[in-house]
C-alpha cells in the first residue's frame, strides 16, 4: 500500500498503538488458537437444541399445522407455532411485515413456520419432519416486473410496490448530440459469511432472557425481540458473541426471537445453529436488479443527461429495501456532473427470498450499470474511457442530481488519475506458462492458446452511515482507572465487531486521546446504549467519534485535577501514562488519579440528514466515500474461462487509522466484488433457490483472487474524527464493473449481466431448455456422445 500524505497530525503522540499504526487484533491470539468463542461454539450444561421448520413453497396458504406427532417424540421438549408468539407476531427493521412464524400464508420458500427444541440436534431435525403442515399451494410471483403489473396477486395489503423513489433534476426533456442506451441486470448475491447464524438463549428464571448472539446491531435486535416476546427491553439482554463475518446479512433477525421463545417456553437454555443450506434461506440477500439506462452527451464528451429506470426485487418482506431503493436512486448517475437527470427506482415485493443489506447497499447495482454506460459512451465518442470519466468527474461545490451539494473532499478526478498511473502488471507470454497462471488453471483447459488480455476501469461512490433523516448515533463509555499500579482504559460500547477490526480502532483512538497504552475494549452488550449498526461503513466514524469524545471528556477531567494540583499549566498532554506540560513530564497519571476512576459517557450523533422530497431532492447523506479500480483479466475466449490477473485501486480514506486492517478491508471487499462479477449468484427458479450450498454457490477461493495494488489518499473530511471516512464498502462497488469492463475489452462482448458466466463470454444464446435438442431428437444424436468421442 502506498499512501499519499496530505495531512499530518500536528502533535503525534508518543504512546504506542495509537491511530495510524498497524496494531494487532486483541482477539487475534484466541482466534489463531481456536479458542475464540463464536456464537456457534456456545455451550452450557443442560441446553436444548432448537430447529426451524421452513416452508417448501414460495407462496401458499397454510390450512393447518399438526404438531402432536412431533411433540410426542422422546427428547422433544417444545414444538411452537405462530400461536405461541407472545407479543407482536411480525418483525422488521424498517417495516414490521415479516411473521416471526408464518400464519395463514407463506410468501417465500424457506419462511419459518414452526420451531422445535430437543435434546439433540438430530432429534430436533427428525421432529421437524413429523410436523404436518397442510398447504394450499399458490402461484408465486417470481420477478419484480410481474409484480408491477396490474393483475399480479397482491402479496401484501399495501400492494406489491414496496418503495419508489424518483429523482428529477434539471430539464426532463433535455436532448443530446450523442446517445447511448443499455440494459443491465444483476443477479442475487449472498453475503456468504462463514460463521452460521447461531446463538444461545438462557432464561433467567424470572421471565426474562439473556441472548448470546452474533449480530450487527444489538439494540435493534433487542427492540424487536422484546416486542415479539411482549417483554420490556430490559428483560431481554443481548451480549455479542463471536461473529463469523456479516457483510449486511446479520442486520435482520434470524434465530433471535425463535431461540428466546423456545428458552422461555422450556425454561432451559436453547442453542440454535443454522446449517449452510438453512443459512441461505435464513438471511436476506443482495437485491437483484434490472436497469435500463440512457446517457446523453455532447460530441466532445460532456454528459447532458442520464435517464434510468431501476427495478429491484425486494423479495417477500421489506427488510432494508426502503433504504436500498433510495440509495440506488441517489447514486444512479455515478460520481459525475450530470446537469439533467430522470431516475425512477422501483422496489417490489415478490415471492422470492427477501433481500436487504449487503456491502455496497444499492450502490453496487447502479455502479455496474453507470460504469458500463460510460464505457459505451466513450466507445461511441472514440474517447479514452478514463478521459471521459475525468471530463465529467464531480467536484466539491457542485450539486449531485439529488440536490445535495458535493462536500469536500470528493476526489474523483484524483483517484481516477492515480489508478491509471499505477504500473501495469508485466505481460507474460501465455503459451507455456504454469497452468495455475492461466484461465482454467489446473483443469488443464488451455496451455495459452485462445487467451486474451483485457483492461477495464471503474469508479464508484457511496454514502457512509445512515441517511435520509435517520437519527444515526453511537454511545461510548470510557473509564480510566489504576489497576495493579498501571493506568488502564476500558471502552464500553454496544458496537458489533464482526471481523472488520473495530476493536482495534476503538483501542487506538483511546490510546491516542488518553496517552495510555493499556486499553481494554470490553465485550459489546446492551448495558451500554445503542452504537447503531455495524453497517454502512459507519462504525469507525460514528462509534469512533463517540469513543474519541468520551476520551476527550475524561482527559479534560484529568487536566482539571492537574490544574488543581499544579496550578495553571500550559499545553497539557498525556503521553505514555505521564502528564506532560509544555513538553516536560510533570507527574505520572497514577499520582493524579490515585485510586479514583474517571468515567464519561458520550452519545455522538452525526450531522442531521433529510428525507428526499417528491422530486428526489434533499440533503440525504452525510458523508461520501470514493474508490476507483482497474482490472486486468485474461480470458480463454474459446471456453469463456477467466483469470483476473490484477486489481489496482485508489481510495480516499480521509485518514488511515490502521494500515493493515485497511488493506484487509480493501482486499476482502474486492474479493466480494470479483465474486459478483464472475461467479456469485443465488439462482432462483419459480421462487425456489437452486444452489443453497457452497458446492453450488461459489465464492472466490485463493486461486481466484489476484494480487491487489493499492494507493490510499488521505484527504481529511473536516467534520469527521481525524478526518476519516468509512472504508468497508467502497472496495466492493467499482471492482465489479472494472472486471466486467476488462472482460469486454478482451472479448468485445456486451456483457450486460452479472455474474458473467462462461456462456455469456463465448456467446451461447440463452434458449429455453425445450428449444435445445432433446435426447430422442435426431439433432441430439450428434452431440457429445461417448462413442463419437471415442472414435475421434
Amino acid at each position: 500500500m502506498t499512501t499519499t500524505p496530505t495531512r499530518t497530525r500536528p502533535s503525534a503522540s508518543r504512546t504506542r498503538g495509537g491511530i495510524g499504526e498497524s496494531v494487532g487484533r486483541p482477539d487475534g491470539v484466541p482466534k489463531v488458537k481456536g479458542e475464540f468463542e463464536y456464537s456457534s461454539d456456545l455451550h452450557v450444561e443442560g441446553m436444548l437444541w432448537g430447529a426451524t421448520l421452513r416452508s417448501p413453497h414460495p407462496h401458499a396458504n397454510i390450512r393447518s399445522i399438526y404438531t402432536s406427532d412431533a411433540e410426542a417424540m422422546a427428547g422433544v421438549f417444545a414444538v411452537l407455532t405462530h400461536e405461541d408468539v407472545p407479543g407482536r407476531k411480525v418483525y422488521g427493521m424498517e417495516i414490521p411485515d415479516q411473521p416471526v412464524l408464518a400464519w395463514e400464508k407463506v410468501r417465500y420458500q424457506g419462511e419459518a413456520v414452526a420451531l422445535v427444541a430437543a435434546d439433540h440436534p438430530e432429534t430436533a431435525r427428525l421432529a421437524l419432519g413429523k410436523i404436518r403442515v397442510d398447504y394450499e399451494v399458490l402461484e408465486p410471483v417470481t420477478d419484480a416486473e410481474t409484480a408491477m403489473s396490474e393483475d399480479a396477486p397482491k402479496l401484501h395489503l399495501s400492494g406489491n410496490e414496496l418503495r419508489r423513489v424518483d429523482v428529477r433534476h434539471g430539464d426532463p426533456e433535455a436532448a443530446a448530440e450523442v446517445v447511448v442506451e443499455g440494459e443491465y441486470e444483476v443477479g442475487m448475491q449472498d453475503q456468504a459469511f462463514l460463521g452460521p447464524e447461531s446463538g444461545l438463549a438462557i432464561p433467567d428464571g424470572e421471565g426474562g432472557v439473556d441472548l448470546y448472539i452474533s449480530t450487527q446491531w444489538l439494540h435493534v435486535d433487542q427492540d424487536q425481540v422484546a416486542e415479539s416476546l411482549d417483554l420490556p427491553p430490559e428483560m431481554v439482554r443481548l451480549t455479542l458473541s463471536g461473529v463469523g463475518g456479516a457483510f449486511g446479512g446479520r442486520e435482520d433477525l434470524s434465530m433471535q426471537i425463535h431461540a428466546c421463545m423456545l428458552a422461555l417456553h422450556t425454561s432451559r437454555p436453547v442453542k440454535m445453529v443454522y446449517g449452510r443450506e438453512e443459512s441461505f434461506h435464513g438471511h436476506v440477500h443482495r437485491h437483484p436488479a434490472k436497469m435500463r439506462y440512457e446517457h446523453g452527451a455532447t460530441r466532445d464528451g460532456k454528459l447532458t443527461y442520464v435517464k434510468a429506470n431501476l427495478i429491484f426485487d425486494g423479495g417477500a418482506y421489506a427488510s432494508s429495501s426502503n433504504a436500498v431503493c433510495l440509495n440506488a436512486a441517489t447514486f444512479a448517475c455515478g460520481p459525475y456532473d450530470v446537469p439533467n437527470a430522470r431516475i425512477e427506482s422501483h422496489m417490489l415485493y415478490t415471492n422470492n427470498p427477501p433481500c436487504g443489506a449487503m456491502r455496497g447497499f444499492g450502490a453496487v447495482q447502479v455502479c455496474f450499470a453507470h460504469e458500463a454506460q460510460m464505457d459505451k459512451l466513450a466507445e461511441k465518442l472514440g474517447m479514452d474511457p478514463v478521459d471521459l470519466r475525468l471530463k465529467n468527474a464531480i467536484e466539491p461545490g457542485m450539486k449531485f442530481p439529488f440536490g445535495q451539494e458535493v462536500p469536500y473532499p470528493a476526489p474523483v478526478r484524483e483517484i481516477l488519475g492515480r489508478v491509471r498511473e499505477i504500473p501495469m502488471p508485466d505481460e507474460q507470454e501465455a503459451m507455456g506458462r504454469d497452468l495455475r497462471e492461466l484461465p482454467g488453471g489446473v483443469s488443464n483447459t488451455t496451455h495459452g492458446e485462445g487467451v486474451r488480455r483485457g483492461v477495464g476501469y471503474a469508479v464508484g461512490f457511496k454514502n457512509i452511515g445512515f441517511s435520509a433523516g435517520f437519527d444515526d448515533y453511537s454511545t461510548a463509555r470510557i473509564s480510566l482507572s489504576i489497576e495493579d499500579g498501571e493506568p488502564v482504559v476500558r471502552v464500553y460500547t454496544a458496537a458489533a465487531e464482526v471481523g472488520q477490526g473495530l476493536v482495534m480502532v476503538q483501542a487506538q483512538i483511546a490510546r491516542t486521546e488518553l496517552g495510555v497504552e493499556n486499553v481494554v475494549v470490553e465485550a459489546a452488550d446492551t448495558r451500554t446504549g445503542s452504537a447503531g449498526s455495524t453497517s454502512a461503513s459507519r462504525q469507525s466514524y460514528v462509534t469512533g467519534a463517540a469513543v474519541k469524545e468520551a476520551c476527550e471528556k475524561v482527559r479534560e477531567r484529568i487536566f482539571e485535577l492537574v490544574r488543581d494540583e499544579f496550578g495553571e499549566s500550559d499545553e497539557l498532554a498525556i503521553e505514555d501514562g505521564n502528564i506532560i506540560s509544555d513538553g516536560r513530564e510533570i507527574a505520572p497519571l497514577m499520582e493524579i488519579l490515585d485510586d479514583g476512576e474517571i468515567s464519561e459517557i458520550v452519545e455522538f450523533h452525526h450531522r442531521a440528514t433529510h428525507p428526499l422530497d417528491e422530486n428526489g431532492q434533499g440533503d440525504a447523506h452525510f458523508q461520501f466515500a470514493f474508490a476507483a479500480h482497474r482490472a486486468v483479466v485474461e480470458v480463454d475466449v474459446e471456453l469463456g474461462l477467466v483469470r483476473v490477473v490484477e486489481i489496482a485501486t485508489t481510495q480516499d480514506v480521509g485518514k488511515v487509522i490502521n494500515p493493515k486492517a485497511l488493506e484487509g478491508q480493501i482486499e476482502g471487499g474486492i474479493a466480494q466484488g470479483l465474486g459478483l462479477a464472475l461467479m456469485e449468484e443465488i439462482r432462483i427458479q419459480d421462487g425456489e433457490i437452486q444452489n443453497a450450498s457452497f458446492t453450488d454457490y461459489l465464492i472466490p477461493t485463493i486461486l481466484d483472487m489476484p494480487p491487489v495494488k493499492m494507493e490510499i489518499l488521505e484527504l481529511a473530511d473536516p467534520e469527521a474524527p481525524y478526518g476519516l471516512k468509512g472504508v468497508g464498502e467502497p472496495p466492493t462497488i467499482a471492482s465489479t464493473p472494472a472486471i466486467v469492463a476488462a472482460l469486454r475489452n478482451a472479448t468485445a462482448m456486451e456483457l450486460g449481466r452479472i455474474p458473467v458466466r462462461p456462456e455469456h463470454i463465448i456467446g451461447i444464446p440463452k434458449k429455453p431448455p425445450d428449444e435445445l435438442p432433446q435426447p430422442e431428437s435426431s439433432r441430439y444424436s450428434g452431440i457429445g456422445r461417448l462413442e463419437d468421442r471415442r472414435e475421434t
Partner: protein
Amino acid sequence: MKLRLMVNGESRETEVREGESLLYVLRERLGLFGSKNACEQGECGSCSVYLDGELVCACLVLAGQAEGSEVVTVEGLSEGERLHPVQEAFLEAGAVQCGFCTPGLIVAAHDLLSRNSEPTEAEVREALAGNLCRCTGYEKILTAVQMAAETTP
C-alpha cells in the same frame, strides 16, 4: 455407542450417537470448538484436522471412522502460550479478520509446510484452494504462509 480416540495427544472416550461426524464429536462432545462448522459439506475447509497424520475435513468423517485414531486439531498446534510459527505469521501478516476460516487455514498451512518447506506462491494457492475465507481476499493469508515458511525450521 462408545468412541475412543487420541486427540491432541490425549486419549479421550465419549458417548456418540449414530451419524455424528467427527466434527460434531470434537465440538459438542469433547468441547474442542476450534474446528469450525461453516458448511459441514466438505467445501470450506474450516473444519480441517489431522486424522492419523492426514489432512481431512472433520465434517466428512463419521465419528465411528475415527475409532482408535489419532486426531490433531488447531488446539493441538500451539504449546501452551507458545504459538506455532504458522499462528504467529497469521497474526503478524494481518491474515485474521472474523477468524472463522482461520483454524482450518492454519491446520492446512501447517500441513503444506510440513510437506513442502519452501512452497512457491502457486503451490500455496493450490494447497489452500479448499479453504474458503470470506473476509480477507486471501492476500494476507498468502503472505502469512510465506512468512511462516521462512520462520519454520
